[in-house]
């Protein structure tokens, strides 16, 4: 069973000619089949965790380790991480002009699977995944993320998650900017992948709303660059009632 282990992760970023430490010792283990929610206020470092694990060049790891089944993830290039089974659904997916969704998906699936998917089954696979996410088939001919609405971008991210079948998926604020209908469709997509039992999900969110649709096994409160508290689904209810105040006060002095 695949396991992502993050140990004592420290990450800095260069901003305004200064080095700023964003992550200050994150410990987290996510196993295939589990769903973890990471919740926290803006600026607590949640997205930094997602992007540094995926290998975004903007972030520098200064301490700690990230391993997938014992393999050193930090030594891998961004694409190697993806081929090892990691997936990041981005909060702000990037436009790629002139590259169609269908070309992109097929190129990506070919890279991840190690061989080009058979055209006939592939077309069916994409079509049915798109239908389930209630995406218009014409969508496949549009350029990647170009002119997509907020909801279309997120659906497109989850479509990729369904097709690429990662071992560990990090969903960075996938719920932000979605209306209730879109949130439900996106959540249904995530749940279809979870039900296979073959993905470990790290759900990063600011709000508890998405947790009504995607039930986490574990909830972690993220504050001031580390996990401040961990618990079960009930911790989300506490956050819903009390907010993040109890966690942010201590962080202000750091």
């Amino acid at each position, binding site marked *: 069973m695949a396991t992502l282990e993050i140990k004592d992760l420290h990450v800095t970023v260069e901003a305004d000619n200064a080095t700023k430490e964003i992550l200050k010792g994150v410990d987290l283990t996510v196993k295939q089949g589990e769903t973890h929610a990471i919740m926290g206020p803006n600026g607590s470092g949640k997205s930094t965790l997602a992007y540094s694990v995926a290998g975004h060049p903007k972030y520098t790891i200064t301490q700690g380790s990230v391993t997938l089944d014992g393999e050193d993830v930090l030594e891998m290039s*961004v*694409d190697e991480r993806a081929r090892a089974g990691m*997936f990041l659904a981005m909060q702000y997916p990037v436009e790629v002009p*002139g*590259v169609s969704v269908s070309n992109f998906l097929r190129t*990506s699936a070919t890279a991840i699977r190690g061989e080009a998917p058979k055209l006939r089954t592939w077309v069916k696979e994409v079509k049915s995944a798109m239908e389930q996410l209630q995406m218009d088939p014409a969508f496949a001919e549009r*350029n990647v993320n170009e002119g997509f609405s907020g909801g279309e971008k997120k659906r497109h991210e989850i479509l990729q998650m369904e097709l690429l079948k990662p071992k560990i998926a990090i969903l960075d604020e996938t719920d932000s900017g979605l209306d209730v209908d879109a949130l439900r469709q996106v959540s249904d997509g995530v749940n279809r992948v979870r039900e296979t039992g073959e993905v470990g999900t790290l759900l990063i969110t600011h709000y508890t709303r998405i947790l009504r649709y995607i039930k986490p096994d574990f909830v972690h409160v993220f504050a001031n660059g580390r996990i401040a508290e961990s618990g079960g689904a009930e911790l989300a209810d506490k956050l819903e009632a009390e907010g993040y105040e109890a966690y942010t006060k201590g962080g202000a002095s750091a």
Partner: protein
Amino acid sequence: MAEAQNIPVGSTTAGSIAVAAESTVATRMSAPPSFDVDSFPVPHGREEEWRFTPLERLRGLHDGTAVADGGIRVEVSAPEGVTQETVGRDDARVGKAGKPVDRVAAQAYSSFEKASVVTVPKETVLTEPIRIAVHGEGGTAFAHQVIELGAFAEALVVIDHTGDAVLAANVDFVIGDGAKLTVVSVQDWDDTAVHVAQHNALVGRDASFKSVVVTFGGDLVRLHPRVQYAGTGGEAELLGLYVTDAGQHQEHRLLVDHNTPHCKSNVVYKGALQGDDAHAVWIGDVLIEAAAEGTDTYEMNRNLVLTDGARVDSVPNLEIETGEIVGAGHASATGRFDDEQLFYLQSRGIPEEEARRLVVRGFFAELVQQIGLPDVEERLIAKIEEELEATVA
């Protein structure tokens, strides 16, 4: 309604955009058009039309020191019905499409020995292209080529430049009423070649002209495609694509002179740059003269800077002397190869080199599709990939 726009998208430190101030197409030339080289002073480099060009790399084409020594081979192959002639400068068809506008073009006109004239008779519709292969064999040459289409004729001309040469040339396209001419000019020179050419198109009444300029090679390539209309209802489409590598200077200067009412023009040039001191220059001049009511024009230049150390100068310039037009606009943008795009594609398992290829292919795709000639399109895509392989390696 006139609509002018200039949208710099993501201009970067690596690329730079210059936007024309108030200079006019006419006044920014240092001398009026002329066939006589002595009408033009030897440029010193600060003139508006020369300020982007490294004169020291022109190998004497600009100051009279370049001496023709042959060394260039031209082969014309044309389908039946097309005539080819070699004529002197006194032939009425030579220079009919336009006069030289700078010293190098005038030098070419003053120095060529014989002009080549290819004629497609009226109402002749060719199904096979006319191919003109220009192969440099290390020498210096001055050339003049005329391609004339009679009324309602239709032709495709592919001009291929390969090898090593120092070449100054004028190419005239005389397009009869209702005729259709597509010209593809490929500059696939060795990296040592110097090529300076003026293309003059005279578009007849209801005629259409499509120019596809593709520049990959050369140490210095400076092309000057120009369009004028001989009657109403003419259409000109000027498409260009360039991949500028380290140390190369590739300059495309366009002029569409809307001197006649109810004509159309559409200009789209796209370039990718990579490597230290890769320098691309694009000047897009569109002039809508007072008489040219009902004009419809648009011009666009896009550049994709793939690495540090490359430079782009993109200067769109639209001058409108009448408000009674259908439309007029221009756009210029220079963007850097986007690290976020690369991250996004890589995070989906796509290796870096393949991700770069996808993005560059995507950048050129729309333009390549507009060419409308499948074999040319395929060749271009293959060539673009080859150029990119060279960087990755």
